[in-house]
């Protein structure tokens, strides 16, 4: 990764940290996307068939990593900082971020990706 994107990433991460300090995670997530709508998208997209997702019935898949304590993750997919923006980027086009990985591009809209990111930030 070239230095400039890294700087932007670090800046975004810092901004997210400051924002996290300023308000609760749930409020922060809501400003970015709607966690309740995100939860519905997660159900409809069958995320639980590959991921353990706390609080979702039948979300017990073990093909991908469990999403427990997701808000505390530092790295998404091994390459992105766990900020709502970067997370939404990953959710929208996982194949562009890590080509050839098992998670498919699910054709989420920008808003759906933000909503799912906001939902994942509620998993403490």
């Amino acid at each position, binding site marked *: 990764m070239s230095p400039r994107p890294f700087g932007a990433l670090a800046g975004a991460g810092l901004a997210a940290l400051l924002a996290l300090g300023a308000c609760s995670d749930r409020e922060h997530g809501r400003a970015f996307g709607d966690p309740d709508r995100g939860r519905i998208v997660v159900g409809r997209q*069958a995320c639980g*068939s*590959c991921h353990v997702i706390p609080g979702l*019935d*039948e979300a017990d898949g073990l*093909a991908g990593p469990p999403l427990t304590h997701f808000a505390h993750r530092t790295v998404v997919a091994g390459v992105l900082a766990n900020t709502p923006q970067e997370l939404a980027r990953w959710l929208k086009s996982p194949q562009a971020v890590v080509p*050839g990985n098992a998670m*498919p591009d699910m*054709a989420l809209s920008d808003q759906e990706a933000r909503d799912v990111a906001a939902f994942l930030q509620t998993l403490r």
Partner: protein
Amino acid sequence: MPGPLKWLGGWVLGGLTALVVGTAVALWVIFSGAFDATASTPHLAPVAWATHTAMIHSIRARAAGVKAPSRFTEAQVVAGFAEYDLRCAACHGGPGVPRATWAAAITPTPPYLLDAARRWSPGELYFIVNNGVKMTAMPAWGEVERPDQVWDLVAFLEALPGLSAGNYARLRASAAPPRPFLEGAAPPAAAHGATPAS
């Protein structure tokens, strides 16, 4: 009335009351439109739990008698892939392969099957594919495929946990087209293994 019989009378009266009230509530749910049959809203949590749990136990119990082969050949896996990619991937996706966009609009939504072989035994997978699942969109593929074609699918599902997205794509590029449905291939009676009527 003697003591014990008085007790019994109370229980009978209570049971009848529960039966009448329960029946009335059930009929009300059925006829009033209170049950939301739309696919655009998710099941209520208790309904989702009850139907899903009943489905799991039904399959486990009913598939117990299915005798699965002890191993599958590579040819079966490749043939199963061709079937899967044509008939299953739209709803169930694959490694790195999204479902069709409309699959998310099905309730209950069809799962990805990357770890299906860790959830179900080969016999159970055969039973599910062969018989389908009521009140989901899962068809009974045994109605249109021969048993050996269903076993090919099971062979593929057994291989799926170890199949990378890259290898799925390579299979897609190289695989032969799937064998046709029964109706195009052979007389259905013969294909089902039954003896001809005449």
